[in-house]
């Protein structure tokens, strides 16, 4: 029995119970809404103009004679691509360092610990700026992302565009993915470590008493059990990545937040643009959270049977 069941008893007849707090809350919310409405209309004299927003979602292209997606939709897709690639790279990093964190070698444990503590104690903004300078100055010329796109044939351009978005922004996108992956990798490391450590000590002992090597022990006994503990928080981390990806707009990665700034500046419809951006983020993250929690309960159900 939980707290709620003791202190929030439901009425047997199913009717709503009215509490004094209901009146206070409704009154306060109504007063707040009235205050905002009043301020916007009579003090600020803000002219709402929602008609500009749809043009930035889809616009009519006269040359091609069809509707094409405009900045906000483009930003949306870049944000999604950025989050997917980042969480994939972060998972690789996270699994590696997560295994380091539970390794018998103190050296590897210290290495994993240093990575996690470094990232988690650093402000995301500072982290992103520092690594951006490295990426743009040193790593990008080293791997030659710009050259690759310049000399690529139409087929590879087509593939790049499907996977990473506009080809002319490929290097830009790549540095965004790298920074985000390095950042989220630390959180995935902790998820993987917690997952592996959640497997009971008896499992380790049973495995080693069967004479399994450490690799086989992990491969056949520990990881299959840990995966069930790792996947749900990893899904949440994906949502977190979508949210954190807004920060890379500050290093000019052209995702939803960056393009929202551009639209807000060019149209001067500041209120409408920021409300739209917040609503878009809200529905992506909220929708994904609903989907994931449903999948999770399905998974739990199928395991229970």
């Amino acid at each position, binding site marked *: 029995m939980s707290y709620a069941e*003791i202190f929030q008893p439901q009425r047997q007849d199913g009717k709503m*119970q009215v509490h004094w707090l209901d009146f206070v*809350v409704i009154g306060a919310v109504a007063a707040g809404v009235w205050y905002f409405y009043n*301020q916007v209309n009579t003090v600020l004299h803000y002219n709402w103009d929602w008609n500009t927003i749809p043009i930035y979602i889809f616009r009519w292209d006269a040359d091609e004679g069809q509707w094409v997606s405009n900045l906000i939709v483009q930003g949306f897709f870049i944000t999604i691509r950025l989050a997917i690639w980042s969480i994939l790279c972060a998972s690789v990093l996270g699994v590696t360092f997560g295994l380091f964190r539970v390794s018998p070698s103190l050296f590897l*444990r210290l290495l994993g610990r240093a990575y996690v503590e470094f990232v988690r104690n650093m402000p995301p903004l500072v982290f992103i700026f520092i690594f951006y300078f490295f990426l743009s100055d040193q790593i990008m010329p080293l791997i030659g992302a710009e050259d690759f796109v310049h000399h690529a044939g139409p087929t590879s351009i087509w593939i790049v565009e499907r996977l990473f978005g506009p080809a002319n922004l490929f290097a830009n996108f790549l540095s965004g993915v790298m920074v985000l992956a390095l950042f989220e990798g630390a959180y995935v490391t902790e998820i993987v470590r917690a997952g592996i450590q959640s497997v009971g000590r008896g499992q380790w002992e049973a495995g080693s008493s069967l004479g399994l090597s450490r690799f086989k022990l992990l491969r056949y006994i520990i990881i299959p059990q840990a995966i069930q503990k790792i996947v749900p928080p990893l899904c949440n981390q994906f949502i977190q990545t979508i949210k954190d990806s807004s920060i890379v707009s500050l290093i000019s990665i052209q995702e939803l937040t960056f393009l929202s700034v551009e639209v807000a500046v060019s149209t001067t419809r500041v209120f409408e643009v*920021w409300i739209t951006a917040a609503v878009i983020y809200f529905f992506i*993250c909220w929708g994904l959270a609903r989907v994931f929690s449903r999948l999770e309960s399905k998974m739990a159900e199928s395991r229970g049977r």
Partner: protein
Amino acid sequence: MVAPAGVNPHSEISVFRKFVLGRKGQKSPLLDIMMVVVLGGAMLWATLRGAASMGYNWQWYRVPKYFWRYVDGELVWGEFVHGVLVTLEIAAWAVLISVAVGLLTALFKMSNSMAGRVLAMVYLEGIRNTPLLVQIYLMYFVISPIIGIDRLWTGIIALALYEGSFAAEIIRSGIESVERGQWEAAASIGLTQRDTYRYVVLPQAIPIMLPPLTGLFVNLIKHSSIVSVIAIFDLTTEGRNIIADTFLSFEIWFTIAAIYLSMTITLSSVVNYMEYRLRKRSW
């Protein structure tokens, strides 16, 4: 040894045994620690060399004057010190407000009032499902002109509302962690709900809440760097301004990172110590 890593935090052994000789039955950790130090040093060296080979001119000697300098024999605090003070000021105000917001939200969420629960849910879902940066922009461009607050308070309130959602969760789980028997016992000796909270629940819940609430303060110091986008003169903004003046990007960013790390790691170890004390007491 196959069991996952982790050492018993309760064994009180000397630093010398811990770091040089190794615990009983274990090999000396000295070699591994040295390897980490060497690797870290190598990475740092590669960074410095790499930048130098790109034609970057390291000028560390220009950094100290941004901490403090002497003008006509008089001590003048530099930009970094001012920035740290503003960062701490933001974090301190924001932690107070976020605890208040969190407490209110937690009480609403646990109340019998339908409207209160809905309001708490709307607030929590709204905050959790949008990026902090977008919340700051929304606050700065939309809310703050409407209610007419200045830049500093816009940043503080945006941060407080963001962290308030975490505070609500900390406070709620702290209160719910008090066992059911305690509530029932309080009810059976005829305590009112207020007295139950005052004498039974809160004395048990508050020690549980304190370490995560301190962690909240650490998070606030970290996240407060994001208010530099609305030009509040915190540590990050001060640093960016210095970079704009001097082009010492690497030196200044490394210095800023070191300052933040020293603040957050110190506080994090306080949190760890508090949790350790709590575990020790409850066992």
